[in-house]
């Protein structure tokens, strides 16, 4: 290896025969060390070219996501602002009835927190676990701002009876340490009972597991649809003469290059009840004027629009693999007596599998995280888990919950990404 790289240096010194030591370069360095040094330098130079971008992506992308994920298990909204009662929880194990010391600690914390104007943050944190308690904290805070007289238990109960609620105390105990798994439990429709055990939430409140299942199921369905629609197209493009296939390729690339919102808008226009497709069906007499189909603002809308939007991501990898398949294999199979179906099943299809794997993984990864299209055309039944994350971010402002859901979704996507890299290789990702 070393000699192959710089044969002249080695030969010169060897022929010079000054001493019998290791081979050296012309300036007297041992050859191995010189080689390692030059390789290190080449390595460093390559890395330095990548470094600016890597730093940029880490700071603007990796770190923000990591910070966001931290919120899914770390929330010091209660523990940082209510130190005394948090300390009491730490000293007394689960199931201890709150004694007068606990009530005093709670009252002191409430007063201090109200003075520091952090009572809203505290209430919000508890509100995640016990809905409706935010206003209890803030209104109590307003009333105790100027101090509170013992006995604290009676004083607090006089302000609001709900202070005795064991569920509230359970929630406060949970929140008394900044680290919590509650948000992950909640994203799996589970909660902690008063005794600390994990149970399912009431059936009427179970939404997340169903949403995860729906996201998976719709993504699988859309992947299958893009495969069914994309395979014939890719095959046609790959087998047509270049001139024709280049023309038809435009029909695939144009949607690929067209704005996502334009395509979503088009589907709204087409699928509305007073839209083009329904008009066409009525005009052709397939359906009556009064029985127009509801094809949008429901799951159907999500499926149709997402299949259309993701179809090029299936066609392009399939096409690039099919192009390389030698047609003489098919001819050979036919000449040996195979029917066209057998030829397809045993000879042609297996050779398209790399493209199919690439396309299916890509479409599935993209579908699982889709947000815009379901939000616009999905209605209530076509929403995916991304829409729930957005809802917690913008409407309920339960950011820790959004982070926990995002963490679960991200974990799934990263596993798929890892698979994609193993099977397809990221380097083989092609565009257009």
């Amino acid at each position, binding site marked *: 290896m070393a000699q192959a790289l710089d044969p002249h240096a080695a030969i010169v010194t060897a022929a010079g025969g000054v001493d019998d030591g290791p081979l050296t370069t012309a300036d007297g360095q041992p050859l191995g060390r010189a080689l390692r040094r030059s390789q290190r330098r080449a390595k460093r*130079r390559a890395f330095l*070219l990548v470094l600016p971008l*890597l730093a940029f992506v880490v700071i603007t992308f990796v770190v923000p996501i990591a*910070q966001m994920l931290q919120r899914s298990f770390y929330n010091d909204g209660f523990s940082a602002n209510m130190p005394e009662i948090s300390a009491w929880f730490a000293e007394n194990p689960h199931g201890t009835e709150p004694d007068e010391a606990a009530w005093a600690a709670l009252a002191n914390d409430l007063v201090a927190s109200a003075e520091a104007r952090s009572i809203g943050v505290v209430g919000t944190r508890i509100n995640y676990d016990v809905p409706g308690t935010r206003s209890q904290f803030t209104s109590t805070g307003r009333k105790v701002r100027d101090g509170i007289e013992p006995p604290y238990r009676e004083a607090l109960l006089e302000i609001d009876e709900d202070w005795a609620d064991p569920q509230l105390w359970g929630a406060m105990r949970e929140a008394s340490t900044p680290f919590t798994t509650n948000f992950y439990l909640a994203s799996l429709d589970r909660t902690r009972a008063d005794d600390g055990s994990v149970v399912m939430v009431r059936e009427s409140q179970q939404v997340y597991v169903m949403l995860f299942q729906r996201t998976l199921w719709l993504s699988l369905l859309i992947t299958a649809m893009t495969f069914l629609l994309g395979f014939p197209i890719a095959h046609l493009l790959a087998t047509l003469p270049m001139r024709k296939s280049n023309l038809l390729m435009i029909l695939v690339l144009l949607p690929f*290059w067209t*704005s*996502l919102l334009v395509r979503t808008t088009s589907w709204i226009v087409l699928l509305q009840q007073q839209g083009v497709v329904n008009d066409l069906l009525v005009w052709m007499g397939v359906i009556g004027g009064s029985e127009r189909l509801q094809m949008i603002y429901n799951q159907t809308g999500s499926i149709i629009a997402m299949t259309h939007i993701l179809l090029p991501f299936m066609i392009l990898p399939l096409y690039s693999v099919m192009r390389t398949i030698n047609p003489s294999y098919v001819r050979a199979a036919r000449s040996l007596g195979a029917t*066209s179906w057998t030829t397809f099943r045993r000879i042609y299809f297996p050779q398209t599998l790399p493209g199919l794997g690439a396309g299916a993984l890509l479409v599935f990864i993209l579908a699982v995280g889709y947000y815009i299209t379901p939000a616009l055309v999905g209605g209530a039944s076509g929403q995916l888990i991304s829409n729930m994350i957005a809802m917690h971010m913008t409407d309920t402002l339960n950011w820790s919950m959004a982070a926990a859901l*995002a963490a679960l979704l*991200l974990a799934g996507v990263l596993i798929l990404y890892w698979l994609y890299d193993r099977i397809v290789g990221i380097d083989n990702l092609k565009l257009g």
Partner: protein
Amino acid sequence: MALPNYASPLERVWHWTYLVLCTLIFIFLIAPILVIIPLSFNAEPYFTFTEKMRSFDPEGYSMRWYDSLLTFGMQAPDGPRDASWWSDAWNNAKWVNAAKNSLIIGFFSTILATGLGTLAALGLSRPEMPFRRGIMAILISPMIVPLIITATGMFFFYSNPCSLLTWIGLSGNCGRLAGTYLGVILAHATLGIPFVIITVTATLVGFDQSLNRAAASLGANPRTTFFRVTMPLILPGVISGALFAFVTSFDEVVAVLFIAGPDQQTIPRQMWNGIREQISPAILAVATLLVLFSIALLTTVELLRRRSERIRGVTPR
């Protein structure tokens, strides 16, 4: 794809079925994009073809939705169309402002993404590059991670960028990036980077490294080699990477929704609002313009691809 001479009747039937199926799928692909173009000239505020449009009555068609793109948000849309009317439209019309913002943000984020991305692609394509696979995975990930997750992370980070310092143990509190042009540009550059990396790396795969060595042996220093030899050869790839980055920025909604302020209203964000609230056919006029825009971009990229193949002596497939 011709049918072989030995095809059986059943195969012939299947062949024609197959062609019909393919035609239908092509219609599925392209019709939604084409159907909005005539509809954007609808004289009525409907989203379907009216009686008059179907009979090609000129009265059924009008430019009113295109006109409304100019006038929407103007202070005095009904005045005479003199210089002050046009300056009113330029300064106040919402779609015009959105277009300006989209172009500004797209331009700077493309420059950033293409500059950094091309450098990195050069490094990544060197055989000595350490941790190549892992670094590549990180650089491509903005394309793979669901946008809503990216946008959520950016929302917190850009609201208080100095939280990065707090995180590593220093204290810090500084201005916001959220709601500023810089913030949106950085976010869009991040999202455009994977496309630059993929396109430029693909161009570099076919690049003959011995050309660089030849230049060096003839006495060119690395800089000269890069600008005189490498750059001209990979330029088509760089430009199409830049176009991809630009389109990504131009079409991006989620990050803009989360981190942009009212001043950074872009076209997609304006469309999003339009679709969510009172959907008006003006959206179709915007959509039509965007379709024409994407046709122009597609043509450019295709021409670049052919040019790149010609330069590198790759015979067209």
